[in-house]
Every structure is written in structure tokens, then in C-alpha cells.
């Protein structure tokens, strides 16, 4: 049986996507303490790096205009959250829907897979954007990071193109989770490696020589460097943005195709509702 037409790749209808995002928000809002603890844990994490930075007084990377290690890592942590959410949000949401038994109920609704994937990943992504904003606000107002040179247009542009590029990765990982079920470790390892290699916590120049060529072509490197340039230099972020945009444009349809094939695989194997 030809399954290709069953889940066609069509442009998403925004109201369907927002419906999925709204349901997730409504559900998450009922866990108020977890929401608060999540934010507090993130800020505590920032403070650890703040004191490490004060202890070591390391200037992280002058090429990116970063004045201290804390400034470097603050952006790394904030943006790792956003990139991590874009790249793992769908996979974890698929897993949750499988556990709660709602995935099949969603799959019989007249929504396209692109709407489903964007809608399921939408809330965790928006939440991570909000969390990144809080981190940067805390860093700027309480912990002495200077945002005086920040190009906010560049910052937002970089976030958007990063979301497109890593959202595609997220759709692929969502498909992987659908097929292999307990893929959390694989997904976690993959995104953690992308963060480390891309320079989330330390410059890639500190990596072993043999690893640096790989780190230079990892997409997260363009995201971290572009965002740090936009924030601390206020310029020179456009090349990174263009590279991420191209990655996104090329990978988005491929990722959606992969996800559709993963769904068809589970329909063929009869494992869509299994977890």
C-alpha cells in the first residue's frame, strides 16, 4: 500500500499549530510548582558559573567581544536551552503523547504532520525563549553583564534562524523517538554533544586539535558565535545567520519527509500507540 499520500507535506495552518501550543500551555499551567522550580534551577545554574568565572577570572573569547567567562557562558546556557528545546522538544512531546495515550487521538484528527510537529514542539520552544530572556535579564540587571552594544535585531534574527535550523533537527529526532520509543538517552547525548562541540560552555579553540575541524562545521557553532557577536559586538552576525538559514531551508522539507516516513513505519509495524 502506498502510504506517501496519507500524510502529505502541506504548509501548516497556524490556527491548528496554535491550538496544540495552547493545550500544552493549559496543561503545563496546572503544574505551577514545577514551572517555578524549573526557572529557579536555571538561575541557580547561572550563579554557579558566575562564581566559577569570578574565581578563575577567565576572559573567554575576545574575538566575540566577550569580556568574561560568565558573559560567555551566560549566552551559552541561555541559547543551549533554546537550541535544545528546538531540537529535542518534539521528541520529548511525542514520547509524552505516547505515554499518556493521546498520540493516536491526535493522529486521527485532520491535521497535517507539519502542523502536528510544529504544534507539539511549539510550547517547549516558546517556554525556552522566555527562559532565555529571563536569564539574560538576570545576567544584565543583577550579575553585571553589559548589553550596551547588543544588536537586538541581530539577536532576534539569530534566534529565529537557529530555531529553523534546529527545529529541523528536532523533527528528525521526533521521528527517531517515534520509531525507537525509548530514545531519550540518544536524543540527550546528541544534543549535549552539539552544545559542547558548538562552544556552549567553552571556546572550541580549547578542544583537542583533532576535534576542532568537526566543531567548526557543527551548526551550533554558527548559532553560538552569531548570537554572541550580536549580543557583545553588535555586528558581524549576518554570515552566521545566512548559514543557519540555508541549513534550515535545506533541512526542513527533508526533516518533514523523514518524520512522515517514521509515522508510516509505525502505522505499518502497528507500534504508533506503543511506548
Amino acid at each position, binding site marked *: *500500500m502506498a*502510504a506517501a499520500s496519507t*500524510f502529505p507535506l502541506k504548509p501548516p495552518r497556524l*490556527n491548528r499549530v496554535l491550538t496544540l501550543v495552547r*493545550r500544552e500551555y493549559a496543561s503545563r499551567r496546572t503544574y505551577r510548582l514545577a514551572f517555578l522550580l524549573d526557572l529557579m534551577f536555571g538561575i541557580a545554574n547561572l550563579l554557579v558559573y558566575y562564581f566559577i568565572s569570578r574565581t578563575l577570572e577567565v576572559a573567554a573569547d575576545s574575538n566575540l567581544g566577550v569580556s568574561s567567562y560568565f558573559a560567555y557562558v551566560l549566552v551559552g546556557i541561555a541559547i543551549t536551552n533554546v537550541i535544545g528545546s528546538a531540537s529535542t522538544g518534539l521528541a520529548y512531546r511525542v514520547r509524552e503523547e505516547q505515554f499518556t495515550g493521546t498520540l493516536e*487521538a491526535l*493522529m*486521527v484528527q*485532520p491535521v497535517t504532520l507539519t502542523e502536528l510537529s510544529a504544534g507539539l514542539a511549539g510550547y517547549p520552544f516558546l517556554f525556552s525563549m522566555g527562559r532565555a530572556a529571563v536569564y539574560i535579564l538576570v545576567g544584565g540587571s543583577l550579575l553585571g553583564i553589559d548589553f550596551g552594544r547588543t544588536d537586538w535585531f541581530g539577536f532576534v534574527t539569530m534566534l529565529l534562524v537557529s530555531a529553523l535550523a534546529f527545529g529541523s533537527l528536532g523533527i528528525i529526532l521526533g521521528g527517531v523517538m517515534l520509531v525507537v520509543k525509548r530514545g531519550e538517552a540518544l536524543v540527550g547525548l546528541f544534543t549535549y554533544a552539539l552544545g559542547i562541540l558548538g562552544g556552549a560552555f567553552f571556546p572550541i579553540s580549547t578542544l583537542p586539535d583533532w576535534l576542532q575541524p568537526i566543531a567548526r562545521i557543527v551548526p551550533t557553532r554558527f548559532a553560538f558565535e552569531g548570537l554572541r557577536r550580536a549580543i557583545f559586538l553588535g555586528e558581524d552576525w549576518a554570515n552566521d545567520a545566512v548559514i543557519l538559514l540555508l541549513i534550515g531551508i535545506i533541512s526542513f522539507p527533508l526533516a518533514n519527509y523523514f518524520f512522515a516516513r517514521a509515522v508510516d513505519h509505525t502505522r505499518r509495524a502497528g507500534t504508533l500507540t506503543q511506548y
Partner: protein
Amino acid sequence: MTSVSTNGSVLVIEGLTRRFGGHEVVRSLDLRLEPGEKVALWGPNGSGKSTVLRCIAGTLLPSEGAVRVCGHEAGSLDARALVGASLSQERSFDMRLTGRANLLFFARLRFGSERIAALKVQEVEEELELEAIAAETVNRASSGMIQQVALARALLGDPALVLLDEPTRSLDADARERLWQALERRRRTSVVLATHLDEDVKRCGRRVDFPT
């Protein structure tokens, strides 16, 4: 894909076979359903009734054969827009939200418009007398209450074909009667219902046996 002529039929199943590994659960099933027709898939647990419902809903692909809904391949976007399904009622809602919030969510997915979604949910709540049940958070609702919300979801927007998996299992007599009245009011709606209860078979008028 096998070419299937539908000729106005709501559902056409031809030569449906479904295997899981080496185990053949459904063998060469043929079924044609006209508008308004109701059929009970009757048989014991594990006989393949739910598998057939899932093949019609599109969450399972047939191993062999073809399933079409109003001429559309089962599971396609067009087919899903014509089908209302209640497959695994008790684990198919967000348990932290009320029945109404869940119904509104599915109605928004189906209709897109906030206004129409609210209207359709209100209509089905009134019809099935679900106002009090729909106000409950799902994790505080009983199996029977959740089953009624699941029926309401399947009926949203008067789909051409309704798929119900053991829909009366946990219902009291009044709720069962409301279910049958709701189905009988929809004279153009076709129903495929999986059951092992004689009463359900009698109300459907047509039965397809599933052997052990």
C-alpha cells in the same frame, strides 16, 4: 494501492488482511457501508475488531487490501476529516484538563475556528447531557464519564463515518440510551462499532462476525 470503486459508499473495505509479525489478526475482510448504515463488528476480545477500526482510522496500515472512506484512502487528510473516532477512550485525553477543555481542543483542531469549535462542543454537550461531566477534570472522572466525553469527541461536527470501540462498555443504562439516540438521530452518519455485547448488535441491525 489497490483501486477500489466506492460508488457513493461511505466505507469500502476490500480484502483487508492485517498481520502482526507472523500472526494474522484479520484475514481478507470485505465490507461496504452506505450512508446511514450501522454495523457491529462482533466477536470476543482479541479477535481483530479494534484492528479493523484502526485500519479505517488510518493509524494502522493494512498488510494487504484496501480501505477507503468516501473514496479517500483511509488515514489521508481528507478521510480523517470525514471520520470521528473513539478508539481507546480512557487514555486519550489530557488528564489535567477538563472534559470541556479537551473537547474544545479537538474541535479547534477539526474546525480551525474558535467560534465554530465552541458552538460544536456546546451542541454535543447538550445533546448528550454532558454539561456536568464536561466540567470535571478528566483525572477525576470515572471510566463511564470519560467514555461519554470520548463519544462526544467522535460526534463533533457530524462526521460521515463514526468509529466506536466498545462504546457502551462502562456506561449506565441512561448513558447507553443517550448514545443510541444520538447515533439514530444522525440518519446519514454511518457507524462501525466494535463490541461483544448482544444489545449493541441489535441496535446496529447488521453484524460482521469475528471468530476467536
